[in-house]
């Protein structure tokens, strides 16, 4: 996982609640190997026609948003299926942070495992952000993981919460598995006792 301290980039507004993982990465791409560039599958069904040509109306196809690396969206972003492929699509396209009032629980934890920051802000702040981004397409915003702040297009700053451990892993580019493996003896002794209790 690449370390991520701060990102400043074009933000893509997705002014729609409940954007589900089936929209982010349609199920027919679940059979693709991880070595594929999943960025090509991002929002595939609304972004491309059946012949592969772009649908000009779709926001990501508009020139001012193509370089987006941050997404702002309405509530319950990433609800639905547990497919990590949805996060891979966002990641491979270049997205490193998603800002929303709430996230699907599984999607949220998948983000953290892939160096993509799920930023929860209150509904009214996200609304203001979405309005600001719609008013000035292609505007840059910043997500600073170290400082735990979002810098809006107008320069104003909003704080956000993130688990200290998840933050540590994202900022350092570490993953949890190595850490857990270092605790193997605790797992072993727990398991022995657990099995004893369940005979």
């Amino acid at each position: 996982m690449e370390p991520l301290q701060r990102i400043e980039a074009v933000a893509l507004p997705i002014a729609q609640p409940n954007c589900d993982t089936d929209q982010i990465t349609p199920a027919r791409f679940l059979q693709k190997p991880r070595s594929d560039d999943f960025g090509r599958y991002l929002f595939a069904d609304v972004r491309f026609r059946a012949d592969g040509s772009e649908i000009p109306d779709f926001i990501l196809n508009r020139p001012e948003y193509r370089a987006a690396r941050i997404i702002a969206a309405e509530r319950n972003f990433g609800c639905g299926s547990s497919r990590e492929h949805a996060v891979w699509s966002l990641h491979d396209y270049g997205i490193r942070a998603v800002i929303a009032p709430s996230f699907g629980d599984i999607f949220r934890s998948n983000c953290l495992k892939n160096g993509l920051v799920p930023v929860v802000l209150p509904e009214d702040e996200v609304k203001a952000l979405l309005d600001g981004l719609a008013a000035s397409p292609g505007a840059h915003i910043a997500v600073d993981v170290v400082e735990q702040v979002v810098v809006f297009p107008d320069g104003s700053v909003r704080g956000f919460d993130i688990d200290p451990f998840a933050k540590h892993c994202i900022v350092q580019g570490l993953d949890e598995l190595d850490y857990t493996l270092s605790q193997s003896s605790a797992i072993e002794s727990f398991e022995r006792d657990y099995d004893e209790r369940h005979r």
Partner: protein
Amino acid sequence: MPRLRLRTKGNTVDHSANHTPRTMLDTIWDSHRILSRDDGQDLLFVDRHFIHDVTEPAFRMLRDRGLAPRSPGRIFGTPDHYVPTHSRKATAINDPERRTMIEALTRDARGADITVFGLGDPRQGIVHVVGPEQGLSLPGMIIVCADSHTSTHGAVGALAFGIGATEVGHALATQSLWQRRPGRMRVSVDGTLGAGVTAKDVILAIIAKIGVAGAVGHAIEYAGSAIRGLSMEGRLTLCNMSIEAGGRVGFVAPDDTTFAYLAGRPYAPKEAAWDRAVARWRRLASDPDAVFDREVTLDASEIAPMVTWGTTPEDALPITGRVPDPDAAPTAERRETMSRALAYMGLTPGTPLEEVPVDRVFIGSCTNGRIEDLRSAAGIVKGRKVAAGVDAWVVPGSEPVRAQAEAEGLDLVFKTAGFEWRYAGCSMCLATNGDTVAAGQRCASTSNRNFVGRQGVGARTHLMSPAMAAAAAVTGRLSDVRRLMAGA
């Protein structure tokens, strides 16, 4: 690691010293807690890990790091998402990528000594049907699987939740997962369900009430007399769709219905071990005075047979209703969302739901592919014919369900009426095996998601119970099943 301290938990849970009322969530959570981090995350021991034919990326991650599954005996698999439902032969899969998914499961499992009920095995089926059916999902367990509908297994009284590929890799390698304890939410349904009203209608009514984000961050405990009165099949349907309410976990406290269902299942404990297990399981239920972070109540007698009209499961109404009018929406945002959904669904506001014609019918999935579901659908179909122009399928949730249905003659009821009778798999729920609904076609479906493109690009899905789907099949439109019920 800065600012990170660990505490090892005592391994035995001492209830006697502590008279604070406890929820079932806490009881199961605490009995699986290996370590706690001071950021509030707990390392939980995983009793059961189910794998299927979309688990390849996790095994690859493991191999890339030179690791192997730690506890193969606690892991079980079956292919479901990519299996053909017209044949039991992998060679019947024309698409090489899909075939690879099934082959990868077989290879990864064999390499690690993991038991897999493969294609052609009489125990194969959708993983969430197979687990409880084989007695692999038991009360008090923590169960994980790379699939959001893992919540299904909560019906036996377990904490079961879906995880992504990286977490699958972690669970394979360590038989444990770091998790933050979710909020405690209780959804109580009291009273008596009316004729023709099933567990599917109950969960659609719950989601319509609380919304698809209604339980985000919470584990749902289902309670109340109407829930107690549900069969295990009904409870499995209910818990299955917890994720559609935003809850990663949904469960029902185990009781005599649970024990009667599990007794004698192949992997359930036997004899003296069974008696000891039941005694333990009886202690899992939440204390009567336990406190929940959120409470929602529904009156069972007010729930009617439900159908969805839009593109999220909260877009559900009683079948007696009409397609809603976006102009009557409370906010501009909702108006916009509804208009988009209705345009996709090809529906006109004000149309009575019972006048909406269907092209396809799909009875199956991990939500409603169990024997009771097929019995209920067959009860409506018997003596009737699938309406002209409708293509109706029954896809049993597992091969044991298919065998049982055939032993009861249900396959003949369906086939005589003009249904297709298929082999077990996910099939048209997700359409990844090639069983798709064509663009613009409208499908009455017993599955769990009516998302845009879920059953195929441009497919229009209406979610409902098996009896309601059967009614749609024989009338050719969305129909109130109560009109078709015996004696009605």
